[in-house]
């Protein structure tokens, strides 16, 4: 009964409650639902439709970002399998399926198989990065697993030929479509492994429907790729097609042409690269040699090499200096030592008193002798002087003059010494005193001396 205490919900409260209830229910999230499409419309880029079967109907919405991945056209009456989450749209009070992906029923079954296998292999670690082997940079032989009739082989050969005209390609042919295809693909991969002389394998085919490509989603192919010793690049269908083999392979290429491009660089690029390398090496070498030359020139032009003798001269001089210093110090040393030695001897001698006494006596003797000699010499000198003076005195006496032949004239009888001619006259008598005896004579003639 309605009473004052009765709680009255707002519509929004109830709707919000239901929204939480539905959207938190695990059973209603990420579910697959099968039904027939009706009420399909696409007023904007999003898709609106219902799924019905028997008496029930489920509103569905597929937003544009999901819808663009559909690889079939939705239309009324088509039976599909859709995956999505149940949610509640409050403005219309309506629960609906937010579709993530959808497939027509036939394909839907395949897709479920694909999803299951993918999950299984993922758990087994088939997709783990550590199993991926890097593709060789320049394979010398390339293996191709595909059909000989398909577009894929032609695309691959065209690209390879364009990029690298001289390549060895081993095709391991197989059907790529139909019930036997998966077995043949697996066998073709094994055959190439048994052959063993290829460095890389392209496994792929051209575009087709999901069913067409399905051989590449089979377990037997996945295992063959996983067990291949030779690196494999998977190239199935077009860009948007994803297969199990893409996951297992060492690399995935969007198309067979892309795979061919991926596994071999354009030969021309490599040729040019090598040419560049060659030029680079030559350039580096030339540079290096040039730098050596420059260094050599620099060294050669250094004064040391230009005037080596100058340095030699300096060395010589320095050497001389050393020699001088060494020898002078040596001589000084010797001299000093000798002086020391003599001093020592001297003082050693001095230390003996007899010797000193003897020395004194000798000195005394020497002094006395000296004195004696001096006295003798003095006496002799004086004697000599005496005789000198006597001789001198003697030579001055008239007697000694007369002895030398001179004579003295006296007047007669006055006995005056005649010095001049006018003291006498002719006829007068004179006395001439000679050294021995006297002569009396008469003046015979007088001559005046002019």
């Amino acid at each position, binding site marked *: 009964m309605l009473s004052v205490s009765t709680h009255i919900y707002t519509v929004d409260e109830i709707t919000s409650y239901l929204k939480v209830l539905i959207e938190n229910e695990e059973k209603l999230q990420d579910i697959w639902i099968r039904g027939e499409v009706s009420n399909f419309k696409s007023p904007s880029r999003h898709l609106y439709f219902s799924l019905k079967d028997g008496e029930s109907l489920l509103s569905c919405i597929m937003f544009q970002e999901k819808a663009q991945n559909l690889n079939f056209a939705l239309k009324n009456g088509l039976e599909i399998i859709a995956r999505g989450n149940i949610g509640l749209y409050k403005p219309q009070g309506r629960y609906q399926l937010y579709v993530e992906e959808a497939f027509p029923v036939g394909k839907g079954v395949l897709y479920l198989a694909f999803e299951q296998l993918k999950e299984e292999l993922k758990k087994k670690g088939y997709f783990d990065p550590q199993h991926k082997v890097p593709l060789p940079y320049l394979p010398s032989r390339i293996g191709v697993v595909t059909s000989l009739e398909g577009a894929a082989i032609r695309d691959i050969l065209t690209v390879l030929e364009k990029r690298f005209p001289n390549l*060895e390609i081993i095709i391991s*042919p197989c059907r790529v479509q139909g019930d036997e295809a998966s077995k043949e693909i697996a066998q073709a991969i094994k055959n190439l492994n048994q052959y063993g002389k290829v460095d890389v394998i392209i496994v792929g085919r051209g575009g087709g429907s999901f069913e067409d490509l399905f051989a590449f989603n089979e377990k037997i192919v996945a295992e063959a790729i996983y067990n291949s010793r030779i690196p494999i690049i998977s190239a199935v269908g077009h860009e948007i097609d994803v297969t199990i083999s893409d996951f297992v392979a060492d690399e995935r290429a969007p198309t067979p042409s892309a795979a061919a491009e991926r596994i071999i660089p354009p030969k021309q690029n490599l040729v040019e690269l090598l040419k560049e390398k060659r030029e680079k090496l030559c350039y580096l*070498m030339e540079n*290096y040699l040039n730098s050596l030359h420059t260094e050599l020139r620099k060294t050669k032009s250094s004064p040391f090499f230009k005037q080596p003798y100058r340095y030699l001269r300096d060395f010589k001089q320095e050497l001389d200096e050393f020699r001088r210093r060494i020898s002078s110090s040596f001589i000084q040393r010797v001299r000093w030592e000798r002086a020391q030695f003599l001093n020592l001897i001297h003082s050693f001698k001095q230390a003996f008193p007899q010797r000193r006494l003897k020395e004194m006596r000798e000195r005394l003797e020497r002094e006395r002798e000296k004195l004696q000699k001096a006295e003798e010499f003095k006496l002799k000198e004086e004697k000599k002087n005496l005789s000198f003076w006597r001789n001198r005195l003697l030579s001055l006496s008239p007697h000694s003059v007369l002895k030398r032949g001179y004579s003295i004239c006296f007047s007669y009888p006055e006995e005056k010494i005649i010095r001049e001619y006018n003291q006498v006259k002719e006829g007068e008598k004179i006395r001439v005193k000679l050294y021995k005896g006297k002569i009396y004579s008469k003046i015979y003639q007088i001559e005046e001396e002019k």
Partner: protein
Amino acid sequence: MKFEEAMEKLKKITEQLEQGELPLEETLQKFEEGMKLIDFCEKKLDETEKKIKVLIKEGEELTLKDWKKEDSQEDSLILE
């Protein structure tokens, strides 16, 4: 030696020469080695002849057959 190994060695040699710190003799030796590696790589690029073969297993025997575009029909016959 693989092409990429030769290229890797070549890269190292180039780097060493770029640093320019090696003695003359070693530099000459590296230069010569580099040139040989380039020759080797060039040879490697040209050594293969263009050949397209089809690998067929007959019983336990693997055989290579020539691929001819025109005879693709025949090839597919071999497949059967």
